[in-house]
């Protein structure tokens, strides 16, 4: 059992949980994730490790209510516990000195950038962070990013905060102002990652996207998380979660991620 140590509600539907996971934290590196199962009846769902405390043996996860299992997790409070936490999983992010790195987070996807921004700064990079969301409430961790990155740009679809527009507009502005960008790292909803990839393609700047396929065992056994990258079937649990954005078949993954929509609705009614 993994006790919830701390809970912060970041927005109406987004919660941050700090959880005891001493075994997970030992080897955890930036960009990795865990699979949690709240209780015997729950699904196994993947969550990014968005912060960790190696001394105290805790990890922090940010969860947005999207279905039954995420809603149940968001309802937890300090003192409650999670039955199973497996990890760290997935290949860690590549951390080295690239030069200038633009890190783009969409909504709750921003959470996944946190450990990576920190590590890339330590490795001597200049980091520009773009945080985008539908509206002001869904912009998370802005202050934390401001304390870490060299520049933080915020965009909202409705203009309720920061620049009105999409993260791709902010990226295009960076291109326009002549910013020499060595790498783009992007995490968020699939349509956003697809759009960022297409915006970047003419510039051919290396781009890494973090895919959120539907996982099951997450240990390289079942093939639920398969996606097409460079025309080949790859498995995001062991080959990913990060892939070269230019090679990802986003359209296919978008459809695949909707494959249990009907069942997800049914589970919400229980």
């Amino acid at each position: 059992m993994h006790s919830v140590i701390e809970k912060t509600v970041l927005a109406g539907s987004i919660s941050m949980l700090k959880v005891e996971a001493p075994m997970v934290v030992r080897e955890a590196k930036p960009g990795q994730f865990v699979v949690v199962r709240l209780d015997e009846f729950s699904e196994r769902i993947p969550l990014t490790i968005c912060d960790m405390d190696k001394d105290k043996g805790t990890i922090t996860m940010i969860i947005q209510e999207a279905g039954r299992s995420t809603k149940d997790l968001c309802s937890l409070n300090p003192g409650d516990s999670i039955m199973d936490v497996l990890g760290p999983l997935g290949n860690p992010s590549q951390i080295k000195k690239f030069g200038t790195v633009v890190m783009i987070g969409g909504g709750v996807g921003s959470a996944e950038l946190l450990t990576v921004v920190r590590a890339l700064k330590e490795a001597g990079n200049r980091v520009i962070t773009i945080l985008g969301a539908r509206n002001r409430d869904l912009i998370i961790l802005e202050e934390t990013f401001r304390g870490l990155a060299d520049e933080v740009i915020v965009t909202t679809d409705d203009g309720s905060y920061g620049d009105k527009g999409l993260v791709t507009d902010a990226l295009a502005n960076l291109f326009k102002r002549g910013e020499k960008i060595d790498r783009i790292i992007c995490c968020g909803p699939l349509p956003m990652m697809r759009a960022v990839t297409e915006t970047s393609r003419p510039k051919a700047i290396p781009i890494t996207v973090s895919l959120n396929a539907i996982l099951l065992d997450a240990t390289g056994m079942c093939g639920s998380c398969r996606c097409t990258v460079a025309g080949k079937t790859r498995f995001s649990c062991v080959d990913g979660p990060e892939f070269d954005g230019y090679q990802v078949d986003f359209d296919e993954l978008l459809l695949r991620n909707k494959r249990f929509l009907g069942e997800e609705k049914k589970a919400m009614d229980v």
Partner: protein
Amino acid sequence: MANIPRQKQPCREPSGRSRDFKEVALGFTPEQAVLEAKRCMSCKKKPCCNGCPVGIDIPGFIELIAKRDFAGAARKIKERNNLPAICGRVCPQEIQCEFNCVLAARKEPIAIGALERFVADWEADHPGQGDRVNVAAAVKDRGAKVAVVGAGPAGLTAAADLAKYGYMVTLFESLTSSGGVLRYGIPEFRLPKTILDRETEYVKSLGVEIRYNILIGRTITVEGLFKDGYRAVFIGTGAGLPNFLGIPGENLNGVYSANEFLTRVNLMHAYEFPVYKTPVRIGERVAVVGAGNTAMDCVRVAKRLGAKDAMIIYRRSAREAPARRAEIEHAGEEGIEFRFLTAPLSIEGSDKGEVRSMTCMKMELGEADSSGRRRPLPVKGSEYTMPVDTVIIAIGQGPNPLIPLTTKGINTDPKNGEVVVDKDYMTSMKGVFAGGDITVGEGTVIAAMGAGKRAAAAIDRYLKALT
């Protein structure tokens, strides 16, 4: 005793069983078991024993059954086999011990598998009378620490034997419960989870500590295990990423690998959705590609989940199907359709990416190929398209990639990624052993158990030579 016919295990009626997940085969009554045991001629050469990968004294335990000493029979089996209730259910006895039985020549070999199962179940029903002695307490001074990775058939067997040798054994499992493929792969109606839990308890009673939710390679690296004081490591992480056909439409919604489909149902209880929250969706018409035991499990599960039509698609003929005959027969009785000599060409979907149909081609058998089986050849102009809602690909899988991926120094076969081991099951990394489907396994539970057993003996020799 030649006048006694081979006893048949009673089975539930197909009409009743094909809509639920309760066990199909019911096991011998004590009277049947004794009758069957009396058929054994106790021949001197014991050819049956040569067919057993874990080396059970088969005539020995059968003789005890004939004398109605069921507790003694249980002890006799457990001298060699830690998991008899499982083996009695899922071993392919017809190509192993029973194949070698002298009575097999008259098509009536002793029903060794059913007898093994009977003894194991009898023991569970009569606590304290069999071998449920506290072996853990018997071993006072435990020796070196040994790590076993993966609580499937190979790992459970290796861990149990290593504990019996007197080592401090920790068994690491990445999932939330024991059994590996025995739990996520084999359905309840063929191997009830209570049986698996019972056998796991026995392994624990030998002194094995099981730690769940630990993925070796990620949570703890193999090097990390040595740093934590383990003197040897056995890797039994089994089969991994599923093979696909490489035909158009395989990533459509409604196409599952056998592993995904079975894991959703067996491990995550999707058949009890939405009480259990992991979904599985199958629709009305389900096509399972392949004809091994896993394919039979998939198609029979699909039927139980409510598929109107559930069928096997296989490019060779019934003769070449690798599944056990009994499984094919059981599937047939439950209304499964078999389309042999049929190869899938493509899967077609809707604009929402959902499976709608599958296009197949008829095949005919040509000359024998390198596997000794007749090669299927396409019949020109025989293509046809049929409506399906779900396609399950059950054509095998590669070894689990995770430990080779995360461990420097463990060599794999460049062709297929299998971990390479020497005759003592040692990998290219000193003190690290491997067996079962992570190596060049034979893909059966009992072969993995045999490898686990021999590897445990090799680890014992290795550790003794070190000191």
